[in-house]
């Protein structure tokens, strides 16, 4: 048998070489494609594993806080924490901490907004005309937020009166010079003026307010000739040392332009830095080179309590501390009795705090500086009650705009005025004049209605509360007054009778907490501001392709992360015992589970077990977020009151279980591709082997006639194919390494040796039907001319196209194999194209899924294109085999006058028909696949698949040029003689 086989191969070199090449192409294609699929599978699984774990594995929330949207879609809200004030008891947290498998259980207690004042300076020096003796500048400030879309026009106006005349600044002397005390018994201080070293007594009566009860002090201008005129500033200092609150349109700031170009102002300018106007100290005039006007910011800073040790273990808060020391559980609140205000019953409690160095508030102050054309005719004599009206009537010409950001105001005046100190050594006394850590306001969870398209629309909760809502207390920052998208409530139960003094132990940089893969990030609102980006073109344009982030208003849809962190140990001093939150102060617990090492069964089991134990032990809401990934949830933000139009946004929430689903999907995809690739290769090799056996039809018939048994004939066929397949496998092995390098496939010895068994398997599998057929065939059938084998009714054939169709139908199995290979190849490409067109590059799910999707699409495209190339080769091969089998007929046609061009047309038609069938079926297969994967097939999919079908047809038709040329160039006489 071996000798027979060798002899057959040697004497049928052309046929053997053809079969060898076909098998080599099939097996090389198979090994490259499967190798590529396998490599991609490994890479994708590794990618998913590397991106499957965020900051924490399990999120524990108060019972009943999971919304319906979350439960239905397997989501976890991205903006949960900022609106949750308590709900978990300290005992529950401690239970969670002690559970087996819990590596870290980090609690966060949101406490509410603390009012802090800051300021920025508007430099107006360049708008002063030094040639003028007296001039008035107007500053109109507008608060801008929501990425520039909201502009609060009801801000303020400030006037700066600049004079080159000498200005007398009041100094203060105690009564009895001014006389007496106020009705509530406060000692009165009187203003006195000195001019050229002498005490002078200007008449201040014109500036008297209707509410003023006694003396007041304003700057006094010395006019040419020595006349003393008071400048009514609109914000008189009362003898009690306090000021009235700014009234619209605001105060006049007086500045003396000195001959040397410097400016002298009183410290009324700096008084705005203080919480209450800062007029406790007597005003002192100061001189500087620039004329800078202070603008006051009222900042709502969010206060939260954490367990420092847990935060350090979870996100390395300690390493994010950029100044001072990190918070420590050892820093217990310190209580000092009131030694500064004898007789008071208040406690002075020092609590440790750590400030964020980032305000993370989207707000800026845009100030238009205008020159005012005229001075009020009676500027020196208009009572302050009517001054604003007089001023606002004056024509003003805008000259310049100054802009200051919340971050600069925060950094300069909040952080700049904060002294970082060791908690144990800090003296509380000096802190009295600073912030009272009294979170008086809280902003709850947004509530939603769902629109028909499935987008969430936050419901309005009225405008920000007015002063009356605070029972006489002044509201915090709510003068901004936009429609609140979170319910704002006053925290009436804080220990307002006590003074909570924040001792700043350090400042942290939230961007320096431990980083986790962005693709699997879970909400970390303790440090990171949430944000929502435009979901449609209009919104993206409005947001300048940026994203909406935390606004200045506490009622903003997106809340800022806490700017002030304190310890859980401080809670009992900050929260009053009657406050419900004092009983369950913790808003959520972020749990990291030990022994989780990726997306695998053991980790999944462990996570589920710990989650179940937490649920059972505490009854709290438990979500396993390990392996989750951010996903965009559609949010339709209604229009605001200050110009922000309605916006369609995408807010990142977390989709649970993405990593596991992706790993499964990648495995399934690999198996599917493997089968498809195997099919294409089998079809390709099957055609080649079948043709090879058919070419030996007569020889086999002779052998049958001389007594060879069917089994032996089949064995001969199989043995010959096996020999050639082994040679193809060896060649494939030789090519494997360079091809692996070329296609970026991970290579190893197994892969390099794979072509040998693969070629044998593919060859023998493909040869089996032909071998069986060879054994079964009647000996005489092989000896008769092939023409006698056609049966059935003749069909009219009057064109080259029709003749091509007959040629294709002549070997239906081979044509079907070619069409099948094309269907698979085109279908694979069509599926990739279809899915891409269906999504048009937009997000398909979670960030991780999208990232994997991008890689999968690239890998799929490569695999699909290779499969298509193999299918095209299989089609060209089928055409070539068809030509070889009827070369006698074709030679006869040429002998009767068919030109080479006619012959090429015929073969091209055959190729085009095969291509049309294969491409059409492939496009339909791709359409079906797209539909199955995406659940939709919009018109771009049809367009893309139509274009693909046309291109694929053209490629196959082009590929058929090779056999067409072969058909046209075969020597006619020789071919006829051989037949």
């Amino acid at each position, binding site marked *: 048998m071996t000798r027979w086989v060798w002899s057959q191969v040697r004497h049928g070199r052309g046929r053997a070489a053809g079969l060898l090449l076909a098998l080599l192409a099939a097996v090389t294609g198979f090994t490259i494609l499967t190798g590529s699929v396998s490599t991609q599978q490994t890479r994708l699984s590794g990618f998913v594993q590397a991106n499957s774990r965020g900051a924490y594995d399990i999120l524990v929330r108060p019972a009943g806080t999971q919304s319906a949207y979350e439960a239905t879609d397997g989501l976890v809200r991205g903006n949960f924490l900022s609106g949750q004030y308590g709900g978990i008891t300290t005992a529950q947290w401690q239970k969670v901490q002690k559970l087996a498998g819990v590596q870290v259980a980090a609690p966060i207690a949101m406490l509410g907004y603390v009012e802090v004042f800051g300021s920025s300076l508007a430099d107006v020096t360049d708008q002063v005309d030094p040639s003028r003796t007296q001039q008035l500048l107007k500053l109109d400030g507008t608060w801008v937020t929501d990425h520039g879309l909201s502009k609060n026009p009801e801000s303020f106006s400030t006037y700066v009166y600049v004079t080159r005349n000498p200005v007398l600044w009041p100094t203060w002397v105690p009564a009895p010079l001014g006389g007496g005390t106020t009705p509530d018994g406060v000692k009165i201080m009187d203003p006195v003026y000195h001019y050229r070293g002498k005490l002078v007594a200007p008449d201040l009566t014109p500036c008297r307010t209707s509410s003023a009860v006694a003396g007041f002090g304003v700057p006094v201008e010395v006019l040419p000739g020595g006349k003393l005129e008071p400048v009514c500033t609109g914000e008189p200092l009362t003898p009690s040392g306090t000021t009235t609150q700014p009234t619209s349109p605001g105060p006049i700031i007086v500045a003396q332009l000195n001959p040397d170009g410097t400016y002298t102002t009183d410290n009324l300018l700096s008084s705005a830095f203080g919480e209450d106007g800062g007029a406790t100290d007597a005003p002192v005039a100061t001189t500087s080179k620039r004329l800078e006007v202070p603008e006051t910011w009222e900042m709502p800073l969010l206060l939260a309590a954490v367990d420092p040790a847990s935060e350090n273990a979870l996100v390395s808060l300690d390493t994010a501390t950029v100044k001072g020391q990190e918070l420590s559980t050892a820093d217990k609140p310190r209580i000092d009795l009131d030694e500064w205000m004898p007789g008071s019953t208040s406690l002075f409690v020092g609590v440790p705090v750590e400030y964020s160095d980032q305000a993370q508030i989207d707000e800026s102050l845009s100030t238009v500086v205008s020159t005012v054309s005229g001075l009020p005719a009676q500027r020196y004599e208009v009572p302050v009650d009517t001054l604003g009206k007089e001023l606002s009537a004056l024509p003003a010409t805008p000259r310049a705009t100054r802009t200051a950001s919340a971050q600069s105001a925060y950094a300069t005046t909040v952080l700049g005025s904060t002294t970082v100190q060791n908690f144990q050594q800090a003296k509380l006394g000096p802190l009295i004049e600073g912030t009272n850590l009294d979170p008086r306001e809280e902003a709850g969870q947004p509530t939603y209605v769902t629109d028909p398209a499935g987008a969430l629309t936050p419901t309005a909760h009225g405008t920000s509360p007015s002063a009356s809502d605070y029972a006489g207390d002044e509201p915090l920052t709510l003068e901004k007054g936009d429609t609140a998208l979170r319910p704002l409530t006053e925290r009436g139960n804080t220990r307002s009778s006590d003074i909570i003094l924040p001792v700043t132990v350090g400042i942290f940089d939230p961007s320096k907490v431990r980083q986790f893969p962005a693709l699997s990030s879970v909400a970390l609102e303790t440090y990171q501001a949430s944000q929502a980006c435009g979901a449609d073109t209009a919104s993206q344009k409005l947001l300048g392709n940026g994203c909406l982030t935390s606004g200045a208003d506490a009622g903003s849809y997106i809340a800022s992360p806490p700017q002030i962190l304190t310890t859980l140990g401080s809670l009992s001093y900050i929260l009053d015992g009657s406050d419900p939150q004092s009983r369950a102060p913790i808003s959520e617990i972020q749990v990291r589970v030990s022994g989780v090492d990726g997306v695998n069964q053991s980790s999944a089991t462990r996570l589920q077990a710990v989650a179940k134990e937490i649920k059972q032990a505490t009854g709290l809401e438990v979500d396993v977020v390990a392996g989750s990934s951010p996903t965009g949830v559609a949010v339709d933000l209604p229009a605001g009151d200050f110009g922000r139009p309605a916006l369609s946004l995408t807010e990142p929430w977390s989709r649970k279980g993405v990593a596991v689903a992706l790993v499964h999907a990648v495995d399934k995809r690999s198996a599917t591709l493997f089968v498809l690739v195997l099919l294409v290769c089998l079809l390709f090799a099957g055609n080649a082997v079948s043709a090879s056996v058919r070419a030996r039809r007569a020889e086999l018939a002779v052998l049958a006639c001389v007594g060879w048994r069917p089994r032996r004939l089949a064995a001969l066929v199989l043995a010959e194919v096996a020999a050639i397949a082994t040679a193809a496998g060896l060649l494939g092995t030789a090519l494997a390494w360079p091809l692996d390098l070329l296609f970026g496939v991970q290579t190893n010895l197994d892969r390099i040796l794979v072509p040998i068994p693969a070629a044998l398997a593919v060859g023998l599998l493909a040869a089996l039907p032909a071998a069986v057929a060879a054994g079964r065939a009647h000996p005489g059938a092989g000896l008769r001319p092939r*023409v006698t084998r056609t049966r059935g009714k003749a069909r009219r054939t009057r064109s080259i196209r029709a003749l091509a169709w007959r040629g294709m139908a002549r070997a239906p199995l081979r044509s079907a194999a070619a069409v099948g290979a094309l269907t698979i190849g085109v279908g694979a490409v069509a599926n990739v194209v279809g899915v891409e067109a269906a999504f048009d590059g937009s997000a398909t799910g979670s960030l991780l899924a999208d990232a994997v999707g991008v890689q999968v699409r690239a890998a799929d495209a490569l695999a699909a294109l290779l499969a298509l190339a193999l299918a095209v080769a299989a089609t060209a091969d089928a055409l070539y085999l068809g030509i070889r089998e009827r070369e006698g007929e074709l030679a006869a046609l040429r002998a*009767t006058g*068919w030109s080479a061009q006619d012959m090429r047309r015929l073969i091209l038609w055959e190729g085009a028909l095969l291509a049309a069938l294969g491409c059409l079926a492939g496009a339909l297969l791709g359409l079906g696949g797209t539909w199955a994967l995406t659940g939709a097939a919009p018109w771009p999919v049809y367009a893309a698949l139509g274009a693909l079908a046309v291109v694929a047809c053209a490629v196959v038709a082009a590929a058929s040029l090779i056999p067409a040329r072969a058909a046209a160039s075969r020597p*006619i006489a020789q071919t006829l003689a051989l037949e």
Partner: protein
Amino acid sequence: MTEGQGGTAVEVKGLVKRFGRGESLITAVDGVDLDLAAGSRTALVGASGSGKSTLLHLIGAIEKADEGVITVGGEEVTALGRGPAARYRQRVGFVFQRFHLLAALSALDNVLAPVLPRKVDFDRAARAGELLDAVGLAGRHQALPSQLSGGQQQRVAIARALIGRPALLLADEPTGALDSATGEGVMDLIHELAEQYGFTVVTATHEHAVAERAERIVTLRDGKIVSDVASEGS
């Protein structure tokens, strides 16, 4: 050579055709000179390998001569390129020993096959039908080759050879695959048609009875003409 206008004269001068190279070089046609009158019926005879089929192929421009000149109807066939050679073959009828019919086509469509790619100035289907009738296959127009006997298939092949109104019919062992009675019938048919349409006939055969039906018998041996005589049976 004018299409369909009776027979055409064939003039062969110093024709040489070799196959292979080196030691396996074979000179199939070796300096053949031959003149065939228009409308004549000539038989090329000789043993297998004598060069008769090669000479026929060279005249039909399905082989390229190495040396010498063939002129058919005043057209130098040996000087034709591939395209003109194909156009020349449209005016030559070929009949083969193994018929070489297209298995998937009916008898009628087989006859039409040569003119499928080109425009003709006659009703092709009508002419094909006429030719099939003329070769005795009336009523078998739609039969597949597999449904016809060998003799019938060769008749289809003859009709196919005549569809282009050739002035020259080249028949290469036209009876080789047929029994003697059928073969004789086929040859009679060819000559009858030649009479009817006036084309020149050159037949390569090794059968004496077939050769005897021609007017002239040219005998080849080792590629050379060894005799050129008028047929006794003509």
